[in-house]
Every structure is written in structure tokens, then in C-alpha cells.
């Protein structure tokens, strides 16, 4: 056998396992954080018994889900029912290939970077539709219909908003977009530049992102109070855990991409906070800044989840097609205009 080939394959496999471990760890503590934060906001305590401050609660819950009996409903299409959670989870995992965790901490800086992210995430909706249909349950099917309509509608404003930082940076590469926001001070981040056009794009991106990851106030495909639990009502045990994992991994992705595109990626807000380091220290500090900034947005998402009511289906569709898409087209035009006329210093 070719030794070099085996070595390369081994390194790639190791990176893949590290990323999977990172996702599992982050999702577990996002769930713990969500339960504690929502508890705080609703004036109750939340899980605090198992381990210090309840830190072992979600690992224990995950173990419990793993041990559960794998129930497949009698009328379900067994094969499709089983493959659907995998189709939903794998794209959410693959996105992490281009995630810029820090200086030099990126699995592969593809030259199509952000386009890859939107292309890969568009696969998940197929898994949701298949899950809803294969369950052979009216609630599931209704959830799947809603999912398809919602995800396809909100993909458009999301991609339009993503175009704005790409136009400003002149690159689709994650690394290129971060380089364009370099310079030490936080005023170089796209969100504070370009006459507020990127700031508007950020708002559109976050709103569309909430809809894409099925988050309150746009979680009408799950809608516990009308659809029981939507497309995943028949799922239990490990398969349900995969849907759950995907939802939280995707929410983290939305926040991380927002940080990368609009908030300077792994750069520190002030030059004296780690911009002058080199080597391994720079890696560690940049990883810290990336995770810290992302954590702020994850917290905002949880805050929204704890405080906002759910929109109705027709409101969601109206908002998507009649507000978000025209606004997205407008900011795209505005960004193109200011860059072409040279009104922004790039």
C-alpha cells in the first residue's frame, strides 16, 4: 500500500473525529446552557443536581437516549424512516469543514467557502421531508410540508445577505473574508463599516438563519402546540437524538458564520488583546476570541427562545417572501453600488 496515502487519510480521519467530538461537546453544553438560561429567565432553577451546577445532566440524558428501545411505527416506511435522521445530520456536520475556528485552525479553506456552506445546508430539508413522510403520521407530514416551504423560502434572503460581506471582501473564502476585516481594531469588522449596509445584512441573515435552523420564533415545522412535534413526532431514542443534535449544531453554525462574516472572525476586538502573538499562542487566543464571540450569539438565540412567541404559518410566509427577499435584494444592490463607486475603503 501507498504509505503516504494512508498517512493523509489518517490525518483527515483524525480531523473529522476531532470536529465530531467538538460538535458533541458543544451541543451538550449548549443544551445545558439553554436549560439553565431559560430557567433563569423564567424565574426557576433548571437542572443543577447532577454534577457541579448540573454539568453532567446532558451527558446523562444522551446516555439515556442511546439506551432507549429503537421504536419504528408499524405503518412507517422502515428504510426511509431510518435514513432520514442521517440525511439531516450529515450536512450539518460537513459544514464544519470550512469553519474558521482560529488562525490556522480550519480543516480546509475552500475557495468557494461560503457558497459551500449554503450548498451543503440546503440538503437537510430533504431529510426532514423524508422523515415526515416515512413516519406515516398526519402531524409529521404537515410538519414536513411546512419545513419544505419554510426552508426553501428563507434560503433566498439568507444567501442574498451572505453576498454582502462577500462583495465587501471580494472573496468567497472564509480566510479571505476574515483577512478583509483585519487591522486590529473592532472598527474594521464589516458590521461597523459600509454605511450600515452590512449591519442590515446581518439582521436579515440572523432572521433567515433562525428560520433555517427551525428556531423560535420560526419553529412552525415543530410547533408543539399545533403539530405535537411536527416532522419528528414518531422519532425516539437515538434517531430523535440525531435530529436534536442537528438542530443545535446548525444553530451554532449560524452564530459562527455570523461571527466570521460580520464580526471579524477570530480577530480580537483590540490589537493589544492577542493580535501580536505568533505560533501556538496566536492559535489559542484566536480560538478563544472565535468561541467567545460565537457564545454571545448563542446566548442571544437562547434569549430569543425564552422570550418570543411563535409566528403563524401565513405570517411566516408573508414575512419571508414580501419583506425579507425584497430587503435582501435591496441591500445586495446597495452593497454593489457602494463598492463599485468606491465609496468604501477596502
Amino acid at each position, binding site marked *: *500500500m*501507498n504509505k503516504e*496515502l494512508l498517512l*493523509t*487519510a489518517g490525518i483527515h480521519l483524525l480531523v473529522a473525529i476531532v470536529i465530531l467530538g467538538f460538535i458533541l461537546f458543544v451541543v451538550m453544553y449548549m443544551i445545558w446552557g439553554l436549560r439553565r438560561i431559560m430557567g433563569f429567565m423564567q424565574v426557576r432553577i433548571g437542572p443543577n443536581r447532577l454534577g457541579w451546577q448540573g454539568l453532567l445532566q446532558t451527558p446523562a440524558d444522551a446516555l439515556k437516549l442511546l439506551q432507549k428501545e429503537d421504536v419504528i411505527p408499524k405503518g412507517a*416506511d422502515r*428504510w*426511509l424512516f431510518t*435514513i432520514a435522521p442521517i440525511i439531516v445530520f450529515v450536512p450539518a456536520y460537513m459544514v464544519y469543514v470550512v469553519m474558521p475556528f482560529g488562525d490556522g485552525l480550519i480543516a480546509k479553506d*475552500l*475557495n*468557494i467557502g461560503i*457558497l*459551500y456552506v*449554503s*450548498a*451543503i445546508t*440546503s*440538503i437537510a*430539508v*430533504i431529510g426532514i*421531508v*423524508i422523515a*415526515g*413522510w*416515512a413516519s*406515516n403520521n398526519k402531524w409529521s*407530514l404537515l410538519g*414536513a*410540508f411546512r419545513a*419544505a416551504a419554510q426552508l*426553501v423560502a428563507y*434560503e433566498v434572503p439568507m444567501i442574498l445577505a451572505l453576498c454582502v460581506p462577500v462583495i465587501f471582501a471580494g472573496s*468567497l473564502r472564509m480566510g479571505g473574508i476574515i483577512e478583509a476585516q483585519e487591522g486590529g481594531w473592532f472598527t474594521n469588522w464589516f458590521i461597523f463599516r459600509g454605511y450600515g449596509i452590512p449591519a442590515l445584512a446581518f439582521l436579515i441573515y440572523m432572521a433567515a438563519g433562525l428560520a433555517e435552523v427551525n428556531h423560535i420564533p420560526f419553529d412552525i415545522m415543530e410547533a408543539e402546540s399545533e403539530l405535537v412535534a411536527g416532522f419528528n413526532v414518531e422519532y425516539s431514542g437515538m434517531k430523535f437524538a440525531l435530529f436534536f443534535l442537528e438542530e443545535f449544531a446548525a444553530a451554532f453554525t449560524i452564530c459562527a458564520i455570523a461571527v466570521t462574516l460580520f464580526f471579524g472572525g477570530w480577530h480580537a476586538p483590540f490589537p493589544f488583546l492577542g493580535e501580536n502573538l505568533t505560533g501556538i499562542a496566536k492559535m489559542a487566543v484566536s480560538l478563544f476570541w472565535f468561541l467567545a464571540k460565537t457564545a454571545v450569539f448563542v446566548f442571544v438565540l437562547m434569549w430569543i427562545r425564552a422570550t418570543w412567541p411563535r409566528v403563524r404559518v401565513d405570517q411566516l410566509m408573508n414575512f419571508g417572501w414580501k419583506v425579507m427577499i425584497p430587503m435582501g435584494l435591496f441591500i445586495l444592490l446597495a452593497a454593489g453600488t457602494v463598492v463599485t463607486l468606491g465609496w468604501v475603503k477596502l
Partner: protein
Amino acid sequence: MEITGYNVAFIAIAAMTVTSAIFVVTLPNILRSALFLMFTFIGVAGLYVLANAEILAAMQLLIYVGAITVLILFAIVLTQQLMGARITQTSRNIVLGGVAAIAVFAFIATTFVSHFSKGSDMIAAQPAVPTSDPLLMIAKMLIQPYVLPFELASFILLVAMVGAIVIAKEDKD
């Protein structure tokens, strides 16, 4: 044939594409066919990546997987009669269809064979890495020499959309 990363990846992806394509046209359950159609599209995207055409691969995923497969699934799921129905994928004209299929296959096969006999070894040769950024090349092509066909394509899409709305619109009286 030498074992290189490229060859292993090519054979794996090509096998996946062809196998799922066969499933698309043979499975009795139309929703499963649609699912395998998705795997075929993903396989084609993988082949594009191996040919150093990442932008084409991303577009393949975005349009064929993210939009067209979703549309097909949506149409299937909305059609009540198809739920749980087993359908055969061959019609009464199986003989004529078979002849047509063999003719098309023979045409493609002869094209390939004549190409190989000219001395190019397509399987072993790895596509050359492009010297300049292919993304930039495509962008410049679309904006400069091919701007009219590009705009025309979007105009045709607009016409199709307006047409669909006119047909679907309810008569008020």
C-alpha cells in the same frame, strides 16, 4: 492502476453515482427513487470536485439537490394516490424503449471508445490543477463575454414564473 487518493475517491464516487442511478430507475417506491436521485446528484457533485470544479459542484448541490429534489419530493408527497403505492417503472412499450436506450448507449460508448483509442488515458490521469482561480475565471466570463446569454437565461426564468402565476391564478368571476 496505481492506488492514489484520486483513484480511490473517483472509484468510490463513481460507484455511488452509478449504483444510485440504477436504483432510481428500478425501485418500485417512487419516494425512494427520488431519494436515490439525490445521491446521484451528490455523486455528480463529487465528480466535479475531483475535476477541480468546486464552483460547479456547489451549484450542483444548491440547485439539483437543494431545489429540484425538494420540488420532486414535494410533488410526490402532495400526491395522495402515490402514498404507499407500488409502481412499475416500465410501460407497455418496453421493447421500443429498450431499443432506444440501447441506441443511445451505443452512441455514447462509441464516442468514448474513439476518444480512448486516440491515446488519452482518462482514468489514470488526474485533472490538472488550474493555474488561476477558476472562480474568478467563471465570474469574469459571466460578466464580460457571456453577459447576454446569462441575462437571457434569467429573463426566460422570469417569463416562466409569470406564466405559472397567470395559469394558477383563480378566475374572479
